[in-house]
């Protein structure tokens, strides 16, 4: 699949905002376009993961797996990305990501990103800036929401954990569905 620099800019404006046309073309070289079908599992919660995915077309559903049941946090569509924590710090995945329908994702492996860092440090730096800002926002929002939950809990003297609504809401921030 051929992707132009302009298409990359239009599909991922936040990620490519400070990139020149040439830089966008370089980035495209490091991405692996993959068609996905409905129910394809791209990332498994708790399992080692060494790549992230930019959503080119279609939607991805994000699920937190608990012992007793799964919690669907929400879904992301074109222009969004998932799994960037793995690129920044390889380790177990924080959530399961499943394709909701047929689509296309652009995979960026940790190996590709390391290579990008060595050969094109400025582009890698621009990407890290965007990812870091996103992670920082998610951490702050998750913390704030948790404190709000605890505060409400103290006032009501009742734990609403069985409803799991607060878990879902924190999950939205943790996984980046809601900033």
């Amino acid at each position, binding site marked *: 699949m051929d992707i132009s620099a302009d298409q990359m800019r239009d599909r991922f404006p936040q990620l490519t905002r400070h990139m020149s046309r040439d830089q966008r073309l370089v980035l495209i070289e490091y991405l692996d376009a993959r068609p996905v079908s409905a129910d394809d599992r791209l990332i498994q919660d708790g399992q080692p993961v060494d790549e992230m995915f930019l959503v080119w077309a279609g939607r991805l559903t994000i699920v*937190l797996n*608990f*012992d007793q049941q799964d919690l669907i946090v929400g879904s992301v569509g074109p222009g969004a990305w998932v799994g*960037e*924590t793995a690129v*920044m*710090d390889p*380790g*177990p995945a*924080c*959530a399961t990501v499943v394709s909701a329908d047929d689509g296309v994702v652009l995979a960026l492996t940790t190996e590709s990103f390391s290579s990008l*860092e060595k050969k094109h*440090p*400025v582009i*890698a*730096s621009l990407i*890290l*800036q965007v*990812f*870091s*800002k996103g*992670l*920082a*926002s*998610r*951490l*702050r929002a*998750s*913390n*704030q929401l*948790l*404190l*709000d*939950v*605890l*505060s*409400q*809990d*103290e*006032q009501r003297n009742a*734990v609403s*954990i*069985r409803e*799991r609504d*607060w*878990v879902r809401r*924190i*999950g939205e921030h*943790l996984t980046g569905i809601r900033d």
Partner: protein
Amino acid sequence: MATLMQLLQTIPQFADFNQSELTAFEKAFRVDIFSDGHVFMNEGEHADSMYLILEGDVEIRRRRKSKAGYALIDRKHAGELFGIISLINSEKHGATAIAVGSVQVASLPQSAFELLFDTHAPIALHFQRLIARQLARDLRRFNRALRAAVQTEDPRATISTYRQG
């Protein structure tokens, strides 16, 4: 007193930094020792620096809404950064950071952080990677803590588990 260079060489997070990178950091950072209870940053105040702990511990606290006092969110140790979230996003501090016992920190003002990017791009990228890695680890830690809370059916367990790492 050990130099910043000597201290950085003992911190695992800096193990893959080369000599010239460490030298650039030594020039950009300012090293100070603070006594117990020192407030490095206050929740709600404008952010102007980030900090690297060289020795000692720092508590991260947030004000409670429902009652007086603070909730202890996290405890940072040698080799960890704090103050990065607000500096990265140009926001006010979302938490208060307080020294626990004597603490030696290296501080990097925002202006020096930006200068590092302008003048030493590869070094700045390496440091940026360090920041991103810590953010990713903190997020993963929060995720684990959330699961612990669900298992114990107690939202308060999220914070206590998060603190434990």
